[in-house]
């Protein structure tokens, strides 16, 4: 069985401050990892993905994430957040083999305060 744990349901942070959204996973097989962002009343957009290669992946809007196999983590970071980054963020994984569906975490609401 696979699972994704997002440790923080809500993260408030001041504008221009750095932020880290935590994601840990559990799987008995190799996985690919994703971060999605959801703005209010919209669908989810892919922020970034880790498939293979460099463990530090860069995504849209200045976000990056680091895959850490030994700690089974895929934390999302941004050095300086903007008001417009306020959204819900979902971490997800899928088996690197044949797989029919993603497994999502429960989401982290990032609120950027002025």
């Amino acid at each position, binding site marked *: 069985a696979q699972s994704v744990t997002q440790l923080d349901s809500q993260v408030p942070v001041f504008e221009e401050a750095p932020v880290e959204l935590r994601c840990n996973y559990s799987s008995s097989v190799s*996985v*690919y990892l*994703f971060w*999605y962002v959801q703005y209010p*009343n*919209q*669908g*989810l*957009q*892919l922020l970034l*993905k880790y*498939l293979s290669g460099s463990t530090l992946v860069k995504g849209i809007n200045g976000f990056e994430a680091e895959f850490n196999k030994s700690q089974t983590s895929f934390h999302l970071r941004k050095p300086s957040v903007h008001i417009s980054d306020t959204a819900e963020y*979902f971490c*997800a994984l*899928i*088996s*690197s*083999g*044949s*797989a*029919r*569906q*993603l497994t*999502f*975490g*429960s*989401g982290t609401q990032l609120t950027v305060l002025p």
Partner: protein
Amino acid sequence: SQTIHQWPATLVQPVGSPLSLECTVEGTSNPNLYWYRQAAGRGLQLLFYSVGIGQISSEVPQNLSASRPQDRQFILSSKKLLLSDSGFYLCAWRSGTSGRSIQYFGAGTRLSVL
């Protein structure tokens, strides 16, 4: 390029009324299709997925059903809505079953059952 359409964007229905939400994908063939629900503060719940016409897998027992009458059309239905059916419904698609395949989401339907 591929696009995914969901409609309606918002819907207010009385308890006991029927439901039909439609999702269509353009620009691809034989996609895997998914219906998710987001209830307030509860993250993403996978309701149904389909790997082909007429092939529906249900993830949770509930008051809803899904159908795939055409390759790129996925319909979520209910004969009699319950208050607990309120939520944000998202349709998504992926190409094939490779873990590398990205999942794309529609804009969602906000359903309020009163």
